[in-house]
């Protein structure tokens, strides 16, 4: 009952092109979801600190509602729950044009936006309140103060935890296989189905995720150095 390793299955047949497609899909869904998550995270994270209660309450609701329900449930929600609200022809059009991908992207983006929101809120709250007052005192509106001063400072402070969240997002994109998105994990399983070589396929998937994560961490480390606030001690260097 020795397991016979056959690493050749990874480059024989279609395995290579499947893995490549899987990587591209994973990167595509993660990149779009990341943009959505960053936008929602910045918006709701900022709203949680504004001096107006109804906006704060709305942001708190968004964060608590979305981050406290498992991602898998959100995948099903966006794929099975949302389309029936649309007219039938629209549904059919969507189902013929990659509804799975978009549902997965929204699930991932909205869920991680709620988590990103907490990171950004903590970044904003670590900025002395007097920075906000100084912005207001020179005639900026609240919106301008956030856009030009508060958020840019906060974003520079939160690169390390945001890196962490970004890596989580990338890895969580594999949950989209439950709604038929052919991303990297899906493709490694597919290779396993065709070749019955589980360990080889899993190892390939693991290594690719590792490379992707290390690359993202490297890019984020560069961003951190490039945009660090002078005078604050840079990490890594």
């Amino acid at each position: 009952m020795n397991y016979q390793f056959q690493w050749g299955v990874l480059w024989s047949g279609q395995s290579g092109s499947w893995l490549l497609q899987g990587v591209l899909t994973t990167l595509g869904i993660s990149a779009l979801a990341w943009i959505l998550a960053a936008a929602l995270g910045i918006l709701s994270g900022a709203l949680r600190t504004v001096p107006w209660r109804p906006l704060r309450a709305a942001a708190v609701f968004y964060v608590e509602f979305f981050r406290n329900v498992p991602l898998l449930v959100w995948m099903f929600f966006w794929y099975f729950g949302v389309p029936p609200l649309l007219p039938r022809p629209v549904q059919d059009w969507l189902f013929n044009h990659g509804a799975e991908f978009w549902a997965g992207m929204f699930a991932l983006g909205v869920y991680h936006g709620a988590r990103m929101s907490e990171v950004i809120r903590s970044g904003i709250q670590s900025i002395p309140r007097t920075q906000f007052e100084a912005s207001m005192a020179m005639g900026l509106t609240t919106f301008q103060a956030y856009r030009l001063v508060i958020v840019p400072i906060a974003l520079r402070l939160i690169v390390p935890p945001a890196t962490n969240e970004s890596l989580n997002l990338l890895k969580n994109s594999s949950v989209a296989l439950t709604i038929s998105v052919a991303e990297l994990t899906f493709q490694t399983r597919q290779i396993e189905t065709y070749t019955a070589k589980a360990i080889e396929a899993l190892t390939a998937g693991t290594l690719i995720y590792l490379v992707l994560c290390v690359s993202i961490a490297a890019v984020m480390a560069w961003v951190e150095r490039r945009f660090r606030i002078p005078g604050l001690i840079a990490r890594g260097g």
Partner: protein
Amino acid sequence: MSETVIEFKAVDKWFGKLHVLRAVDLAVSVGEVVVVCGPSGSGKSTLIRCVNGLEAIQGGELVVLGESITRPGVRMPALRTRVGMVFQSFNLFPHMTVLQNITLAPVRVKGLSAAEAEKTARALLERVRIPDKAAAYPANLSGGQQQRVAIARALAMQPRIMLFDEPTSALDPEMINEVLDVMTDLAKDGMTMMVVTHEMGFARRVAHRVVFMDGGSIVEEAAPEAFFAAAQSDRAREFLSKILTH
């Protein structure tokens, strides 16, 4: 009689249950330099923070540059472009260079072109005597230099009134004078100024009037010579004895 630019009329201010300004009446004329002093917790910082609406008031009326800022619907950002403020903790934006700090509001609020704003900014840096620091980041400046940039930043909006909230309290002693000198120049040029400070030398030399506050009320206001020579109230005398002999 010259034009009144700031007028407190029976202004009341609470922080929750704490009554921090009690029926304050005060008028400041154009070109006047008013030093506000008093023990900590006397409400002096709160007083000047009301002038540009950083603190809302709960009673009375406050008229700034002919506009009642307690009236509903008043556009505070527009008012604030005409009232500059300098803080104890400088509050330069750490992610921007000195030049960017100074040009931010002129470009974003007044709609000046970047070139115009930069020209003004460089002139102001000249005026606060650090023309060579335009490209530096705040963290690379000394406290005194940072505070002078903060003054230049406020002046860039060409305000009619300047508020100073303990501008030298966070500075090392050797840097205090470089900031006070800039403020003195400004006063000589005829700027209307309200200055919260413990620098009694500055008050004596530059102020037209000294306002002494305690417990949320204005206890005494007088010309500096009169105030320092013969304060009327016991509280003011006690305060002066502490601050001048320490």
